[in-house]
């Protein structure tokens, strides 16, 4: 017992004496955490909703529709997210007269331009993921649906999408985690996200290891939670694709 307390003493002293992990810095990390989660969650949600119709239209027979969506995904997958963020945040702000319009309400706050860039970016990737998955629908399923006399819309709704979206799940899970990690650039446009909070604490206390290792651990917890969620979903929703035992 005596020995145990001498072992712990340095740690306790450090906990009491350190000025890096205080209520103030935890409040900073908390702000960062809520901003990161908010930003990533909302952009993924809108991106997902946008991506489903876009992925269907991406495979449409209509040349103009198909090509324009291809062009959009090509553009957003072909340029760095950081550049897209800069354009959304700094670019629009310098359109003459924009401060006078209702748009300024959104541009004034860094959160909205960041949401715009993140949403359009994830929607582009997700569109391609879903498009690939729709394309890979087994020919037999489509023939069977046709044989039942289903309309195109009905076939899409009942046969193609349910199985395609399920098969896209593992790839989409990756996209979600990528998005979480990519969101670490949000601090360059003055948003206090997790990385921004860590950077602030690093710069204030000159303690790179404490600040960044702690924030890395937070990101890791978030990543693992997302992974666990997708693992659960895959187990439930992809049960029919498992080899029979």
């Amino acid at each position: 017992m005596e020995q145990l307390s001498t072992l712990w003493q340095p740690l306790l002293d450090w906990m009491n004496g350190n000025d890096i992990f205080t209520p103030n810095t935890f409040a900073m990390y908390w702000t960062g955490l809520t901003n990161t989660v908010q930003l990533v969650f909302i952009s993924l949600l809108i991106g997902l909703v946008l991506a489903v119709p876009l992925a269907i239209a991406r495979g449409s027979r209509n040349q103009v529709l198909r090509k324009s969506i291809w062009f959009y995904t090509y553009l957003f997958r072909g340029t760095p997210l950081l550049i897209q963020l800069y354009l959304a945040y700094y670019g629009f702000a310098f359109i003459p007269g924009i401060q006078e319009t209702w748009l300024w309400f959104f541009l004034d706050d860094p959160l909205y331009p960041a949401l715009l860039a993140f949403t359009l970016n994830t929607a582009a990737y997700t569109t391609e993921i879903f498009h690939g998955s729709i394309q890979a629908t087994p020919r037999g399923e489509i023939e069977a649906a046709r044989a039942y006399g289903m309309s195109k819309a009905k076939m899409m709704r009942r046969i193609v999408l349910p199985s395609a979206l399920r098969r896209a799940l593992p790839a989409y899970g990756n996209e979600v985690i990528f998005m979480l990690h990519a969101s670490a650039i949000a601090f360059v446009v003055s948003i206090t996200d997790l990385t921004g909070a860590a950077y602030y604490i690093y710069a204030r206390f000159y303690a790179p290891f404490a600040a960044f290792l702690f924030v890395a651990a937070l990101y890791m917890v978030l990543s693992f939670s997302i992974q666990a969620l997708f693992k659960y979903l895959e187990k439930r929703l992809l049960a029919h694709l498992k080899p029979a035992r």
Partner: protein
Amino acid sequence: MKKIITLSLMGAVLATGHAQARDYDTVRIGVDIPYVPMEYRTPDGTLTGFDIDLGNALCKQAELDCKWVIQGWDGIIPGLQARKFDAIMSSMTINDDRKKQILFSDPYMTPPSAWFTPKDSTISSPNEESLKGKSIGVQRGTVQDNYVTDHYGSNASIKRYATADDVAIDMEAGRLDIAFLDYPTGKAALVDSKSGQFKTVGEMLTEPKKYFGEGFGIAFRKRDRELAETFNKALAELKDNGTYNTLYTKYFPDAKAE
């Protein structure tokens, strides 16, 4: 016997050498340029700035002959140790790490921090009341950031940027109501480069020391205690006779001298 005399002579030489490092007639001062308005060259090549003018005034007061030696920042402390020059006067902030290596004079100034706003701003004196709900721009992790975060963090929105130029861009775009920056940096990024669009408001701050630090000091080799004392004495005299104030207002017209 001879041996004893030699030894005692050596001892005497060593002892005096230790007690009194060297009598300086000419003092070479190392400086890293440019850092406007502290030390820089005018277009015709003459060295000028607050440090230079104050340094020359100090030398005159102490009746020393001074010479400036240009030295890059990275090599400025090693240069002092290697006797390439005898002092450093180059906006060097006094801190504990440096104190282990070198000897500092009394602080001769604390760089002021200043508030900047767009020209047509209605904020005239920044305080709890006038900054309520405003967005304040700062450079992330600077002393200004710490000060603003602790004082106004709870009822104003603080936006942190990597550089003063990023602050300037967002101020120009109209996203920031006010910025709090180190005065020379903010003046260069906002007032000088975007002429007529921005101004400084309110009082410049150098206190409390907890945030703004001890300030700049002149650095010497550790053994040159006497030389440091000479400079401290001269500095006190210049502060008394008003020379210091004249120089300070010449370079920082809007700031209140300490």
